[in-house]
């Protein structure tokens, strides 16, 4: 049904909060949704969360349209994971003009109109990956960085962090750092296959900046028989497939964020702001390096297996 308040007489109107992810088909975003729903459930009916992503994923214009649509519906506030640090600036500013505040999650926005920025420190995550990969490689050898896509702030920061960390390891040579995995697992797989066909024999360490590229690269490595540690692979984010790959030793490390917390804190922060409370400008939701050894640690497990069923319909 339509998102208009069921504000019957007397009863206080529920706060309508729009949560806009970058896309809807990744496990990552399901965790974010679960976090937002958790906040909704805890509020005991005081807030209602509307979850909607752009129709076509990775399309900035589509995401602007979603923001505008929620604006037309006069929601109380927006929690947004911007597809671009620049393109979403004006919609957020316009929303503010219409009296709708915005909390940014996951990925940065170059705007002074936000309430708060709730996200992983991606640069730090990239650095952790770089340092760990360098250690795995014994401080020397040839490495590959498989990028994600143009203009995505979070992955670009990971890439930058990774490159920054490698500065400290002069004997590690980067033999390819300008190929892009693209939006789907298929595109990532193809890019990996072609890359490995060229460099597969000499490469010793690889960093993939998101889940799809990690999975595609692992598959391609297995195919040429250099998985299982022959080539060290560090990836980002954890889904069921990459956790499986980590367990069987094809992936040596995963940098894992806490998307559930991101969604939760995003909504919570917004509500606190709407209630007139004080909110922090920057909330770090943390990154964790997961390896085969700390897989079962009690503080790591919920990151890998978030309790989605509890919050999602």
């Amino acid at each position, binding site marked *: 049904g*339509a998102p208009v308040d069921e504000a019957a007489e007397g009863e206080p109107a529920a706060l309508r909060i729009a949560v806009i992810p970058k896309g*809807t088909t990744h496990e990552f975003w399901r965790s974010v949704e679960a976090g937002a729903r958790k906040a909704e459930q805890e509020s005991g009916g005081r807030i209602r969360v509307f979850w*909607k992503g752009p*129709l076509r994923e990775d*399309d900035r*214009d589509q995401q*602007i349209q979603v923001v505008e649509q929620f604006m037309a519906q006069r929601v109380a506030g927006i929690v947004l994971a911007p597809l671009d640090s620049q*393109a979403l600036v004006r919609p957020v500013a316009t929303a503010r003009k219409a009296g709708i505040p915005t909390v940014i999650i996951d990925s940065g926005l170059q705007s002074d109109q936000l309430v708060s920025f709730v996200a992983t420190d991606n640069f730090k995550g990239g650095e952790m990956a770089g340092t760990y990969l360098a250690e795995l490689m014994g401080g020397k050898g040839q490495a590959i960085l498989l990028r994600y896509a143009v203009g995505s702030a979070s992955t670009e920061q990971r890439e930058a962090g990774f490159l920054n960390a490698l500065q400290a390891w002069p004997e590690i040579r980067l033999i390819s750092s300008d190929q892009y995995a693209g939006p789907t697992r298929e595109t990532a797989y193809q890019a990996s296959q072609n890359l490995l066909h060229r460099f597969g024999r000499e490469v010793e360490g690889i960093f993939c900046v998101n889940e799809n590229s990690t999975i595609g690269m692992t598959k391609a490595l297995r195919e040429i028989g250099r998985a299982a540690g022959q080539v060290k692979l560090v990836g980002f984010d954890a889904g069921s497939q990459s956790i499986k790959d980590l367990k069987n030793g094809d992936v040596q490390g995963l940098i894992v964020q806490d998307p559930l917390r991101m969604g939760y804190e995003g909504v919570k922060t917004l509500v606190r702001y709407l209630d007139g409370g004080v909110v922090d400008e920057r909330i770090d939701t943390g990154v964790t390096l997961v390896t085969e050894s700390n897989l079962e640690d009690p503080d790591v497990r919920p990151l890998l297996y978030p309790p989605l069923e509890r919050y999602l319909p």
Partner: protein
Amino acid sequence: MKAERRWRSWRPAAGPLFGLAAVLALFAVDPELRAIFFSGSNAKLVLTQTVIVAVGALGMTLVIVSGGIDLSAGSVVALTGVVAASLLVAAVPPVLVVILTLAAGALIGFVNGSIIAWGRMIPFIVTLGMMGVARGLAKWLGNNQTVNPADNSLNLLMEPRQPLQFFPLPPGVWLAAGLAAAMAVVMSRTIFGRQVFAIGSNEEAARLCGIPVRRRKIAIYALAGLFFGMSGLLQYSRLTQGDPTVAFGLELEIIAAVVIGGASLNGGSGSIVGSVIGALIMAVLKSGSGQLNWPTYMQEIVIGAVIVLAVGLDRLREWRTGR
């Protein structure tokens, strides 16, 4: 007789109008949605979302009426958006930016048209190739990044300003309306316009009657490119950035608008008014189904189905009135 004649000149737009009414009716059923959807601020939103497709549809109408197709439209929008942004970053004055951006669009169209006309190749393949080339050029120009110029007057083209009321509309909407009116006159009243129809209707006959088919084709694609350049400018202004990956698949949306607007992909028929209404239908659909708060997949299914229905109802109506 009189009545019949009036009907004839009005006819091309009747089908699309009917479709638009049907789509609007769809969203008027739910009283809650109706209140939100039929408000001044939402109308402004829909119009703003329409213009990029609508301006592109002006150029595409020209191409389709002439019996061609241009698949590079989306890529050219992205490329010209990046061109505009890059020029702004280089501190070129906005007026010159507009001229150069439109020129870039027209140049791409000129290349398309020349290959099609002189190489006697089918537009589908040539523009499919150009789709890749222009997209690549956009990425190269933007150095694989989005290009973000400082605040400037072009950003205002698509600025909604007062988000809660209908007026003032962003200048881009007025611009699009003006361009559409001009093109409608060009298509129906000028020699050039009629020659476009003749070429699309029967290219061989047009050639036999002494119409310089090759030169016209080049002009058609170049002009279309110019419109896509204008779309690119508006797209830039909407994002306030040049994004080489934007407008992916936009060409299909534009083509759909033109066809919903009554044009035949075999060439020889189509109208500017129809195409603009077609673009409106698409925008209303997207906006409306977005507001219904359906999950995204439902939106995709509904939009797909309604595209077919809109054209199908038109067919049915036509069939009833017995053509």
